């Protein structure tokens, strides 16, 4: 497994993303992102198995969770 990251922003939204992904049996971990990821300062996101990328995009989109970008690699990019 290699990790992909959904860059979300707030801790609350990241936890919500983790929850909705968990409900779909997709394991996701909330991570604090390196500040350079967003260029806006502190931010959180979720890490997940890249094999689940298309599912993750679809689920987060359906749940109305705003993702500023998806990237390959762990949270401390």
């Amino acid at each position, binding site marked *: 497994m290699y990790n992909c990251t959904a860059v979300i922003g707030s*801790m609350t939204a990241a936890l919500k993303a983790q*929850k909705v992904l968990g409900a779909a049996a997709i394991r996701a971990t*909330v991570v*604090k992102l390196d500040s350079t990821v967003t260029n806006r300062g*502190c931010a959180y996101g979720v890490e997940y198995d890249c094999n689940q990328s298309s599912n993750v995009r679809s689920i987060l989109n359906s749940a109305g969770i705003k993702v500023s970008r998806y990237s390959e690699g762990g949270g401390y990019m």
Partner: protein
Amino acid sequence: MIYLDNAATSFPKPESVISEMQNCMKSYSGNPGRSGHSLSFAAAAKVFECREAASEFFGCSGPENIIFTLNATHAINMLIKGILRRGDHVLISDLEHNSVYRPIFRLASEGHITYSVFPSMALDNRRTPGLICSYINKLIQPNTKLLICTHASNICSATLPLREIGQLCRRRGMFFAVDAAQSAGHMDINMEKLCIDALCVPGHKGLLGPMGSGMLLLKGDVLLDTLMEGGSGVNSLEGFMPDFSPERYETGTLAVPAIAGLCEGIKTVQREGVLSIRARIETLNRYLTEMLSTVSGVTLYASQHCGAVLLFNIKDIPAETAGRELDKRGVCVRSGFHCSPIAHATLQTPENGAVRASIGFFNTKNDIESLWKEVRQLAK
């Protein structure tokens, strides 16, 4: 000691609330949404758990729309000062606590807004939701932006018909905010069903959490101006607060132990069931009303309404004196004006105010009988 001051704050607290607060302080008291370590994440997970519990409990649109505050007054101020603009008109009821009245009064006094007071008809036997709404309708102006009112009075058991008022606000394009200080945990409140745009609740009353906990629950598509600015743990390189909830409004470190306790309080109320709690409280209120009605010299106010609160006076004993005497006899009640001068005017209480007994989750028939016995002694 008999505690009948639950409208001020509920006491005692469930053991689960106390133990979870202790557990938080001992085991996961990191700063949520700030750091990247396990203790911070554990605290954030508990905070999120509470958001989810509150969102489900009140029929809110999602955990991100639960904003933690210090108390209901804090939530009300955030709402009022975050939504109103110069020239707006506001409607409030004649049962409001100072938590609503004072921020509105100040903004009006400074010339920013105007406001009108609609009648709750708390003493009127002709009282119906339709009649109250017809009074509201007459007071609506083209610039009426907000109707904010209490759900249940803090000095009597009168309630306002939220469903009908909410539907009216929706039809007339007004923002509808509710002060649920006395009803949260005692009455069924579903924001979606009642067309409530903002709900302000204390954590430490009917929800059985600790003092220092409260919430502002917002409808999803609302973006208020901020009351305070500062650290939010997100977008920290930017000068402006984030434009999303709840981080936009929750500046500075959250009261995580209080939120952890509140989460357990909400779960306790959910397990017991609001309707069951309400039924028990109403039974005790009816019993207290009946008992005090038999005491010569006791005046009851608006006692036709049945809920958690009963307001009374004993002969011509000033309310504060009566309260002190009851305290000496081991009964805790609250006397005076209860921070609700306009509601006291509505109920036509005397110049010293009145004595308030307020029933809570843990009260029993014995507590009611103890109060009755002591009042009877004082009335002799």
